[in-house]
Each structure stands twice: as structure tokens, then as C-alpha cells.
């Protein structure tokens, strides 16, 4: 039961952290719960579909369908996150001012919600499809223990969701003066980590060269399979032994988003300073 709980927990954790950040990033935005819920529901539906067609996806693109599919949805999430950040950089000042001045929800907030709902959907889709396949395997393979395993699954689901909730509540403690800055950095790091993960999948599919097989190896110090390692992996894209191309994708994504935010949104630091 505990093994099941840990496996489900690790999968749920990633989605829960992303949802927590998205919720914090959209504090005070009108209809955000509707968008986030839509993302979760779409993600769950997608997860069931992906699990159902796992065979087909896996066999596609000369056997590299799984990697190509994962990399595609990750890159898509990276674009959505980057776009959201640039948009928020542009309108963040007005949003923050209105929030401060009137403590009221902001109508303009609807636009980036499209993108964040998609990001939530993608996070749930990726992690959810693995959970579905795993639990389905248990249901068919070990009927005698199915009840216990199910209990473990529920325990994992709840504890993963609890960590996401803690993340969200922790972010809410940050004064709204800094919240935009903090969440836009979190989202930038999240996007960079996803880009690196996507590059990893394309290396696995032999579509990209690794360039350097192992840039560093810190698996002895902090394994990416441990719970803290997994947390950091989701939040900042920590990998205990990245390949050269993963590092390259990480840095390029980080720099590109930061640069686009400066170019199109003005420096977010100065804007926040204005509000203060």
C-alpha cells in the first residue's frame, strides 16, 4: 500500500505544484477557478484518453511516439508559460495597481487564463496518464490486494494535493507587492525545467544529440528520485546529471523568457517598484 502511495504521490505532486503556482499567479483574477477547473477536467479526460491509446502513441513515429508526444506537450506548455509571463509583464502594473487600490478582481485577467488553463491541463494530462496506467495495472494484476492498493493510491493523491496546497498558501503569504515578481520567476524556472525535460525526451528518441552525456553528477548529494529532488525537479528543473543539450535548452529558455519580458513587458522589477 505504501509503495502505491509513494508512486501516486510523486506523480500527483508535479501537477499539484504547477496548479499551486498557477493559482498564486492569478490571485484576484476573475473566473480563475473556472479556468483552472476546466484545465484539470480537460487534463483528466486527456489522461484517460492517453492511457487508453498508450499503445498507439508508443508505436507512432518509428517507436518514438511516447517521447515525441511528451516533448511536444512540454514545449507547448513552455510557450504558454512564456507567453503568460510576457503578457503579465505588460499588464502587471495595471493589475497590481487595481488590486491594491480597490482590492478588486481584474477583468483583463481573463486573457492569460487561457494559457494557464492549458498549462494546468497539460500537467494533469502527463502525470495523470501514468497514474491511470499504473492503477489499471494493479486492478488487473493483483486483484487480491486491489483494495489496499486503492487505499494507497488515494493516500498518495491526497498527500500530493496537500503539498500543492501548502505551496499555494505559502505563496499567498507573500505581499501582493512582490507576488507578481515571485510568480513570474517561478513560472520562468518552471518553463526552463520543462524545456530541459523535453530536450531529454528528444535525446531518448535519438532526435537530438546529447552533446555532453553528463555535465555534472550530483545524484549522490541530492537524487532526483528523492522527494526533495522531485520537488526541485518540478519547481526549477533540477536534474542530478543533465546532458549538455538539456542544460542548453534550460539556459536558452530562461534567457529568452527573461529577455522577451524585458522587451515587451518592460522590466518587471521596475514596475513592481512603481507600485510600491
Amino acid at each position, binding site marked *: 500500500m505504501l509503495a502505491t502511495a509513494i508512486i501516486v504521490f510523486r506523480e500527483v505532486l508535479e501537477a499539484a505544484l504547477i496548479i499551486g503556482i498557477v493559482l498564486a499567479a492569478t490571485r484576484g483574477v476573475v473566473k480563475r477557478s473556472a479556468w483552472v477547473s476546466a484545465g484539470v477536467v480537460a487534463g483528466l479526460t486527456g489522461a484517460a484518453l492517453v492511457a487508453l491509446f498508450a499503445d498507439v502513441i*508508443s508505436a507512432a513515429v518509428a517507436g518514438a511516439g511516447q517521447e515525441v508526444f511528451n516533448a511536444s506537450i512540454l514545449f507547448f506548455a513552455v510557450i504558454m508559460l512564456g507567453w503568460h509571463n510576457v503578457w503579465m509583464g505588460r499588464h502587471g502594473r495595471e493589475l497590481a495597481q487595481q488590486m491594491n487600490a480597490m482590492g478588486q478582481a481584474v477583468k483583463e485577467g481573463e486573457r492569460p487564463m487561457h494559457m494557464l488553463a492549458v498549462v494546468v491541463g497539460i500537467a494533469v494530462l502527463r502525470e495523470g496518464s501514468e497514474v491511470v496506467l499504473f492503477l489499471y495495472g494493479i486492478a488487473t494484476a*493483483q486483484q487480491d490486494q486491489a483494495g489496499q492498493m486503492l487505499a494507497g493510491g488515494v493516500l498518495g493523491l491526497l498527500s500530493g494535493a496537500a503539498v500543492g496546497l501548502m505551496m499555494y498558501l505559502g505563496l499567498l503569504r507573500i505581499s501582493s507587492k512582490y507576488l507578481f515578481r515571485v510568480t513570474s520567476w517561478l513560472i520562468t524556472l518552471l518553463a526552463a525545467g520543462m524545456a530541459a525535460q523535453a530536450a531529454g525526451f528528444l535525446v531518448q528518441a535519438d532526435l537530438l544529440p546529447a552533446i555532453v552525456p553528463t555535465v555534472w553528477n550530483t545524484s549522490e548529494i541530492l537524487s532526483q528520485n528523492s522527494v526533495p529532488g522531485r520537488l526541485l525537479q518540478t519547481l526549477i528543473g533540477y536534474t542530478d546529471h543533465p546532458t549538455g543539450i538539456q542544460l542548453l535548452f534550460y539556459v536558452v529558455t530562461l534567457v529568452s523568457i527573461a529577455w522577451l519580458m524585458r522587451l515587451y513587458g518592460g522590466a518587471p522589477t521596475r514596475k513592481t517598484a512603481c507600485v510600491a
Partner: protein
Amino acid sequence: MNSKYLGVIMAMLSATAAYPLQAKDLPVFNLSVKDGHFSPVQVEVPAGEKFKLVVKNEGSGTEEFESSDLNREKLITPGASVVIIIGPLKAGSYGFYGEFHPQTARGQIIAK
């Protein structure tokens, strides 16, 4: 999900599908997994050479081949085989495990 986004995903997928996959003749090594146990538990491969690892799931539940040493993870549905391209590896031993049976499903790739 908005159909516009779905369209973009499909476009990206087909763009990647059009990319010519290198059909190089790599040496093939076979591995099977059945209900939480790999067989063989050790796979010996040549060091400094790229190779294909074909993993067949003979069990009744889904398994995920995972190796942090090798930076690989791939789901294998029951009855299916997947191809994982690995290497070139430096001489040494690289652990792998089945994510869904982490206690029992463990093995190593030995590069010589």
C-alpha cells in the same frame, strides 16, 4: 481544451513525424519484464557504442522502464515492446528499474 491549441499540438506532432528518424543498424539487446521482474537482470553491452535496448512487457500490468543513471524513462503497456536507444556509454554499470515495481524490478546494464 480549445481546438486552436489542439491544432498546434497536432501540427507539432506531424512536424516531428516528418523528421527522418535515423534508421541506423545499431546492435540490439533484449530485455523482458514480467510482473515486476526483469529478465535478464544484467545486460552486458559494449562500451563506447550506441545500442538499442528492446524491452518487452510480458506481464499483465503496465511497467515503466526507468533509469536515472541513463536518463531514460519509457512506459511499456502489457504485451508491448519498446525500443530505447542508449549510449555510447563509458565502461561501468548503470542501474535501471521498473517504476511501478521499484522494489523487485531492478537490473543493471554493464558496459565493457
